[in-house]
């Protein structure tokens, strides 16, 4: 068992990782269970995390490859009780049904909005196109991300 050094949600941690083990397996074992497993082959996006600021499928990243990098999981998005505007918007717009794809979807949106604060609907759809949801029709997620973008813009201007 080798060890990897990861900064997870701003906390530096040294974790065991077996050869061939994926970031998804290591994160879930360490209790970051907001990172979901839906396929294990990069098709569904339920395990989306941010790796050095970019959304990736944790099931496709070997834990060893993440050594020394920064990871943001859904557990690190809210500050205490204060939800992130994307989380707030997902609740207000009815974008959450079963909630299984929600963490990955929110992190893909976070990645998008950190690079593009004024995305078009097409850009939003593109950004979450790798996050499959079987409960909703994506209508309310798209609306939530638009609403979150607006909230984040006006917060910045205040």
């Amino acid at each position: 068992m080798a060890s990897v050094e990861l900064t997870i949600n701003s906390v530096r941690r040294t974790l065991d990782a077996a050869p061939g083990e994926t970031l998804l397996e290591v994160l879930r074992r360490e209790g970051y269970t907001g990172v979901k497993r839906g396929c294990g082959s990069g098709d569904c996006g339920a395990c989306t995390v941010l790796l050095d600021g970019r959304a990736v499928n944790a099931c496709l990243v070997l834990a060893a490859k993440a050594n020394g990098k920064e990871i943001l999981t859904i557990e690190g998005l809210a500050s205490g009780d204060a939800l992130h505007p994307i989380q707030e918007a997902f609740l207000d717009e009815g974008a959450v049904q079963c909630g299984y794809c929600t963490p990955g979807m929110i992190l893909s949106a976070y990645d998008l909005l950190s690079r593009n604060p004024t995305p078009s609907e097409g850009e939003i759809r593109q950004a979450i196109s790798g996050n499959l949801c079987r409960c909703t029709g994506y209508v309310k997620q798209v609306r939530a991300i638009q609403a979150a973008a607006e909230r984040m813009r006006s917060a910045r201007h205040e």
Partner: protein
Amino acid sequence: MSERAREPFVVVGKSVRKVDGVGLVKGKPKFVADVDLSDVLHVRILGSPHAHARIVSIDTSAAERIPGVVAVLTHANTPATRHTTAGQGYPEPSPYDTRMFDTKVRFVGDRVAAVAAETEEAAEKALRALRVTYEELPAVLSIDEARAHGAPVIHDEGDSTGIYDAARNIVADVDIDVGDVGRGFAQSAVTVETTCETQYAQHTPIETHVVHSLLDSDDRLVLRTSTQVPFHARRIVAQTLGIPIQRIRVIKPRVGGGFGAKQEVLLEDIAGWVTLRTGRPAFVCLSRAEEFVAARTRHPMRVRVKLGANADGVLQAIEMEATSNTGAYGAHGLTVLANTGSKTLPLYNKAENAHFYGQAVYTNLPVPGAYRGYGATQGYFPLETAMDELAERLGLDPIELRRRNHIRVGEGSPIFEKLGEGREGVSQTVKSCELERCLAVGAERIGWREKRGTRRREGPWVHGVGMSIMMQGSGIPQIDMAAATIKMNEDGSFNLLVGATDIGTGSDTILAQIAAEVLGVPASRMIVTSSDTDLTPFDVGAYASSTTYVSGMAVERAAGKVREQILSVAAAMCKEPVENLRLLEEHVVGPAARVPLAEVCRRAMYSSEQFQIAATASCVPTESPPPFLASFAEVAVDVETGRVKVVRYVAVADCGVPINPLMAEGQIEGSIVNGLGYALTEEMLLSSTGRVRNPSLFDYKIPGALDVPALDVILVGSYEPTGPMGAKSVGEIGINGPMPTIANAIYDAVGVRLHETPFTPERVLAAIRREAAERCPLA
């Protein structure tokens, strides 16, 4: 309409946040696999490589020697009890044709054995070390092969029960008659007939089937499972493993989607057996490939519809013949078949003559089960295609033809009574129906008048619009049962305990809203505990579009009883007659009184004539009011490649009073997009030996955010007088729309009828070429 219903609602009809929403957006550990699993035995299952074979022997010795292997399960050491995996009310209408591990395998992927080991790797390794000798049998790989004379008999075991005719591979047979269709067709000015064949398709919840089992400190078996039917799961596991119900506790944590797939008890028996035998916690989770191969699917069907109408377009006769492929086991075989007729034919009650008949047959193919829409989906495709054909023959607008035939308030249909859930149904009269308005609003929104029949061209793309209408039900009358308990706490909050099963549908929230409405508090004052067989009262679970209507009514009644108790305590406190008091904004309010609920409960709990303010109520519905929906689509068909693009989809629904409008819309949006996948891309491809060729979300294409058209969902208000707060169901109906709506739109665009699904570019192009060749044979 009750007095209270006439008052404006305070909590109901508002899109309050999901009661479990904050935890879900924060990624809190809420699902089965989100707990510490470091002490579990990992269970892996060996699937059959053959479609049909006898197991001659299984040599487990090499597997058992692998370090870390704790148990190997086969037919030799597990209970042989025949049961059904279908989580239905007892006694189930599905045959008892399944055992934990059988001596015969009946489809590629059928259970052969399982291994429990300290690690997943050891379990996998052990599976590979199992030496199984099979005697291969000829396989039945289609409906026609199943029905052929002298076909191999799939269930020849002798100890199965409830099969209609095992020797002829017939699981179920339905035949009901109203009037005389022969006479009806003879009287008709026009008749049309169409036959459609639908494909194998899958639910694909993003969370696959998963169970975590353990023994509690009293040695009772605890099953934490991703299920839609916790109480049925408890009963079926008790039956299968031969242990008392008393010894089992089923807990449903959050569920990552079900859509019917989790109305099936697929893994709980294995996990339970391992835990009881070893005393150790166990964990079974299907991989995505296993989910595709060995979980459940929608029943593929061949359905023929014949319609006869007079010159005014009033239907005189409807005949529907359905043949359903129920795969290797008969779970939901009878009831899905029956619903193909019972959820469709009453819509056109003007036809005085109707005949529905059909059979469900076994094949050596993957096992279908309950899937959102439940047979109605397979029935509406040919029915609404035939209605489109009929409109054309009569020279009538398709909307007008529906108007002349659809059921209305105050009307019934003999089908309601003749055809129920695998047995006779229940007579009912429709008390709310806004289909007329759904049609008008939808036609306006899609631009029906401007766009229909214009065949607008943009390069190779030709545009067309199509429509269809449908109904579903709200629970299963005189069968479904739901119960709810409410108890009051001394801060004025309430515990709401329901057996109802929130699988992401939002039922915890809407049930809290219903209770809160009655009790005069915000929904946030309800602490919801659902689906724990030790803690909550019984409920059949999340299926048949039952929860809002049936469980909602149980909650409304329990809340009503608690309300009475609160008022009687308050009446003593403020010396007012009960009739003068009501509940408002967390207070008991009277002409000269305003008592906080907390004070009422503190008095009942601690000071005077003490008792627990609490009540339990049940609901067994006596009818199943249908929600209604009109669907419209604009499509563009690329005549060079056969590609179909849905440009816009409009769905206008009458679901009674939407308890939570955003969530109700979400149910319809989700079911439509699921239906769009079913109509356009989703198809389980089967090899010539019965193997699923595309068991991944890469090769089996469900819609992503880029694949979805502009989607307008509109709820037209109605009030269902029998429902809780005027509500009807909303969960399933939307999925029935896309297939017929898109097929009819394709016809409007390019003049070809599609009878096989999904509408892939290959099928559409072939149909366009066939039609061109027929029109101009020498070209």
